[in-house]
């Protein structure tokens, strides 16, 4: 079972994901979630979000969280990649990949991971207004 968590400089690009998402025979459902920076933050327009991370705690908490979620939902694999610093509108700030025997646990794991991410991992976003 693969548990991977990583914080990368800037946006999450396809290169950051290379080799991350292993295949395995027991996997019946794989979900990839992608968070993307939107132009409107409430009523105001932004050009980017600056993601601030408390290092190295942020990456360690991300990894602990991935391990907890994997254990609770009996996952076959989980990988979380989060950006740090400036991520422009339209770019990807966060990717979560989850593999499980069945879809129910894969989707529940994605939902719970993101809930916990937004409470328990020391990452902040600061809007860069237009």
């Amino acid at each position, binding site marked *: 079972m693969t548990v991977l968590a990583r914080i990368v400089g800037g946006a999450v690009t396809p290169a950051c994901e290379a080799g991350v998402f292993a295949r395995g025979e027991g996997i019946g459902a794989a979900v990839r979630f992608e968070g993307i920076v939107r132009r409107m933050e409430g009523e105001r327009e932004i050009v980017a979000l600056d993601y601030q991370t408390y290092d190295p705690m942020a990456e360690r908490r991300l990894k602990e969280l991935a391990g907890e979620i994997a254990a609770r939902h009996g996952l076959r694999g989980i990988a979380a990649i989060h950006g740090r610093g400036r991520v422009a509108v339209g770019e990807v700030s966060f990717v979560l990949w989850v593999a499980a025997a069945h879809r129910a646990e894969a989707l529940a794991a994605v939902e719970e991971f*993101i809930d916990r991410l937004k409470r328990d991992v020391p*990452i902040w976003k600061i809007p860069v207004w237009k």
Partner: protein
Amino acid sequence: MTIDVLIFGPAASAAGSDRLRVRFADGESPSAGEVLAALAREHPDVGFALGGARLAVNQAFAAAETRIVAGDEVALIALVGGG
């Protein structure tokens, strides 16, 4: 004893700084809960960030009763928003 509490995100923007200092009597070893209370008392400009806030001591979440000693790295973990 003075403690410099690292702050981030909206709290840092509001304070215009990346840390806040809180003061305790010499020889005192305050708990994480007491540091949070001192932040609220001495730094009302970051009061908006303290609801549900937790302290990290040496890069790990600390229970309210955790004692802080000289040399500890103390950070306010509030209003996180990853994703």
